[in-house]
């Protein structure tokens, strides 16, 4: 895809709404310095969304989209879940895959893009929930890591199947009760960020979306590593405030609490990837 497809024919500028004119005139597409600071005064590539008020996942997606190094050369692969309600509103190529298949689909897309556009750098980013990444799609997630596919996988972990009424997932912590898991989870939370390391990821980070700058840094690093080295994985806590009984203004507080508990920072960078990131910093890419 090229940003050129957003160039409006001059004959129609007078009938186009401001949001589309802004997308051409005032959005940060491939600028070297694009980032979360642009959220305040630039046109976002996520126009609006239909998630719950105060949803941390919606905020996290905005941070991620603002941090993509080259959105016009990025394909996002997503899976069924709350986030799939937002994808029709993003001015990027997004591919909705069957639940759990997202890493297999992304692998195929990345390989074809590399073959079709050998002179361009194309990023493929998977965005899926914990059910798709860790439960139903675990096979496809891990297999893509084993195969060293050059894709970035971002898991929005809300620790529950939220939009189907509150069933426990592999990512639910032990003892947690939900509406459709009344007896409480019997087993421990699956440490996906550790599985990612042992399965061959060059980069694996666990964090919450409480600090936008941290999210932005991690997303940029993960995508750069996936371009050159191999798979990268981000495990991002984005609680479902409805399922855990919080108000719209309490999502941030919940994430800050978990920064010190279940989501205490975890970061693994392979030695080769670390070297590569140092070079990126020297060259001013990071």
């Amino acid at each position: 895809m090229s940003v050129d497809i957003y160039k409006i024919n001059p004959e129609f500028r007078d009938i186009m709404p401001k949001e589309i004119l802004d997308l051409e005139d005032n959005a940060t597409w491939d600028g070297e310095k694009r980032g979360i600071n642009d959220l305040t005064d630039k046109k976002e590539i996520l126009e609006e969304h239909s998630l719950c008020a105060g949803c941390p996942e919606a905020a996290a997606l905005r941070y991620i989209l603002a941090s993509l190094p080259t959105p016009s050369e990025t394909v996002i692969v997503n899976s069924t879940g709350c986030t799939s309600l937002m994808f029709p509103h993003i001015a990027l190529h997004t591919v909705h895959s069957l639940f759990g298949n997202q890493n297999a689909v992304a692998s195929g897309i990345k390989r074809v893009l590399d073959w079709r556009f050998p002179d361009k750098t194309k990023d493929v980013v998977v965005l899926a929930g914990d059910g798709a990444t860790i439960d139903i799609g675990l096979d496809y997630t891990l297999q893509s890591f084993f195969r060293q596919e050059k894709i970035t996988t971002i898991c929005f972990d809300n620790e529950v199947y939220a939009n189907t009424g509150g069933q426990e997932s592999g990512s639910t912590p032990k003892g947690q009760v939900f509406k459709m898991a009344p007896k409480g989870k019997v087993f421990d939370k699956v440490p996906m960020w550790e599985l990612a390391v042992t399965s061959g990821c060059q980069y694996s980070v666990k964090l919450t979306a409480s600090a936008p700058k941290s999210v932005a840094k991690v997303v940029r690093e993960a995508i750069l590593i996936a371009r050159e080295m191999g798979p990268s994985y981000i495990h991002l806590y984005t609680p479902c405030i409805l399922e855990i009984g919080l108000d719209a203004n309490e999502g941030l507080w919940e994430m800050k609490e978990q920064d010190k508990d279940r989501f205490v920072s975890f970061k693994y960078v392979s030695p080769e990837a670390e070297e590569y990131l140092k070079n990126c910093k020297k060259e001013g890419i990071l």
Partner: protein
Amino acid sequence: MANLGPADYSPYPVATYDGILTPPEGKALLLTDIVDEEVAMREIARVMLTSENATIFPGPQVLYAWNEEAKKKATLIKEMAEVLNARMIPMYDYRPKYPKIDAAVEINPNHPNLTIWHNNIKACIFIGVHCHYANVALKIVRAETDCYTSAMCALSGHEDAMATIRDQHSEDLARFIKVAREVKQELGK
């Protein structure tokens, strides 16, 4: 509530159930009849020139300058709107918009009837809308409004439109404008 369209309370949601198919190459579809392209062009021009609030709905394939053909078509569509005394309302993307669209200035394939009701549009032309979304929109308009729909399609046409011309490229649009000028003169508009 506006008047219902030709599908009305028909149990059939799509024109194909009534045996209406897209026209063969070189031909056009007028309601249930296969006719010559020129006949359909004249009828589309006549309906547009004689109906209340005639409107052209340009879609993304012509709104954005993504190739040379799109640039040529944009110029021609602007000219077409002037000849037909028609307004233009863009279908600039296909997102389901929340809480709802601004029906005064835009049209969306998921609720095209809202724009047609709001602006009391009695005749329209869909052009540059990707076929799968044109199909969705035209079915809704056919059932929910009394607007006369014309589809100028670069591919094989749309049976859910009341008039459809297929394989319409920039040279064909230029031909349509010429025909429309003649009809306009005949009608003394």
